[in-house]
């Protein structure tokens, strides 16, 4: 199947290096300590952060740092074909783990000893790149909750189809079976905290694809920063500072 037309356009009309439209909103769950929704094209996720708070299960309490927990769940209506999935299947457990590890690496957990931070991500619509969208939403929600972080982690995916590196794969491109590189970075520090790849890719191409994904991450970081700034300004205005 042809994923990139001779004119250099992808199935949804984007150029190979083009990202889908980003939309982010802060404070979508009123009762949570921090929350955000993040959209990449048709992929839409909500993240809510509860904490830092007392550790629920005493045996998990750590005296030198905070406990970070994460749960990923998909709504029944999030995929094209309606399926009743049991909660806690392998895929969601794996993604929960990936998100937890990524966020744990950037939260300054040593500042919040004997406490617990819960991150819940809920996928409302899945159209490829849910992993990245979840990490981006979780970053925003953590920032909204005022939890100290090393930097804003952002994530983006890139693939390699029809011998062209493609940024931000959608569901059709994702299920083509080609390589799918998901990268998470700390943009200010220029460090990679998450790197995952499915399928195979010649080692010469890995660098270009990865570089492309990193560029995507940086673009997302800029967007997220703008959204946060906007939100802070609004808060400032409301408080009459």
């Amino acid at each position, binding site marked *: 199947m042809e994923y990139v037309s001779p004119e250099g356009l992808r199935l949804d009309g984007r150029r190979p290096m083009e990202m889908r439209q980003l939309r982010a909103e802060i404070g979508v*769950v*009123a*009762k*949570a300590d921090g929350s955000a929704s993040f959209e990449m094209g048709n992929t839409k996720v909500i993240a809510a952060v509860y904490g830092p708070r007392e550790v629920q299960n005493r045996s998990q309490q750590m005296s030198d740092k905070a406990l970070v927990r994460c749960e990923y*769940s998909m*709504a029944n*209506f*999030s995929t094209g074909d*309606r399926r009743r999935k049991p909660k*806690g299947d392998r895929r969601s457990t794996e993604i929960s783990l990936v998100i937890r590890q990524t966020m744990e690496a950037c939260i300054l957990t040593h500042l919040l000893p004997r406490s617990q931070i819960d991150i819940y991500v809920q996928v409302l619509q899945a159209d490829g790149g849910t992993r990245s969208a979840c990490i981006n939403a979780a970053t925003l929600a953590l920032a909204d909750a005022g939890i100290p972080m090393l930097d804003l982690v952002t994530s983006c995916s890139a693939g390699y189809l029809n011998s062209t590196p493609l940024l931000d794969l959608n569901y059709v491109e994702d299920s083509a079976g080609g390589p799918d590189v998901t990268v998470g970075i700390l943009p200010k520090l220029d460090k990679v905290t998450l790197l995952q790849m499915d399928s195979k890719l010649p080692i010469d191409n890995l660098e270009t694809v990865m570089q492309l994904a990193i560029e995507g991450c940086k673009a997302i970081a800029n967007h997220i920063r703008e959204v946060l700034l906007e939100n802070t300004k609004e808060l400032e205005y409301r408080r009459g500072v």
Partner: protein
Amino acid sequence: MVGLSLGEKHFIQGGIAQDLRCDGRKRLTYRPIYVETGIIPQANGSARVRMGATDVIASVKAELGRPSSLHPDKGKVSIHIDCSPTAEPSFEGRGGEELSSELSVALQLCLLGGKSGAGSGIDLRSLVVVEGKVCWDLYIDGLVVSSDGNLLDCLGAAIKAALSNTGIPRVQVTADPSSDEQPEVDISDEEFLQLDTSGIPVIVTLTKVGRHYIVDATGEEESQMSSAVSISVNRQGHICGITKRGGAGLDPSIILDMISVAKHVSEQLINKLDSEIAAAEAEEES
């Protein structure tokens, strides 16, 4: 779930007794309702409804299926609700399942009517494509994104909004319907049929706190309830379903009084909801 001090409890109860609740509402006033339709493009219909800090999403998916042998002239509708842990950390893992199934059962009871289909807001006969062979199955999925009391009313409103947003593809039957084989159908992806949603009831939950009852209770108010009765009422003022929550017993005369209050409140709620849905639909189209 909600940690309240003794003083706060007295404050809530005292406010309700004096007909002035914590957020300034009267006992029978709803919080403002915000409706957004068409938020899940992959579904046939969807809506998001917010009442205060309660936020729910409902989606409708239509799939072709076979009617049951007992009712060959009717389509099938099923309702399933999920509670996202974003709403409450205790819904994590399997924690939300109990509430989810309770809400699903209550909504099925209140919206889908009796076994023969009478009293159902959705005309099940309109979902049949070929009698006894092909019908539409509507799968209604609800998701609780944020919860601050009164989930049932909010979900009922969201389902009503999602159903009025639903477009069911027009179906052309190509094969001879009289033959025994499963007829071939051709689903149009351009022409859609709207569901008639005028008969879908709204759910009014009356929560009894102390000697009085209130509508649209917040999470804090719900923690002080002795019992709650959810009554679904349609436009004609007919009762389509009742469920009760909470352990305390109620005198039969109180229940009859609650029913008449619910009928009165439902009129305003239906009008308010209909105008909100119409506004949301208009905004989506523009």
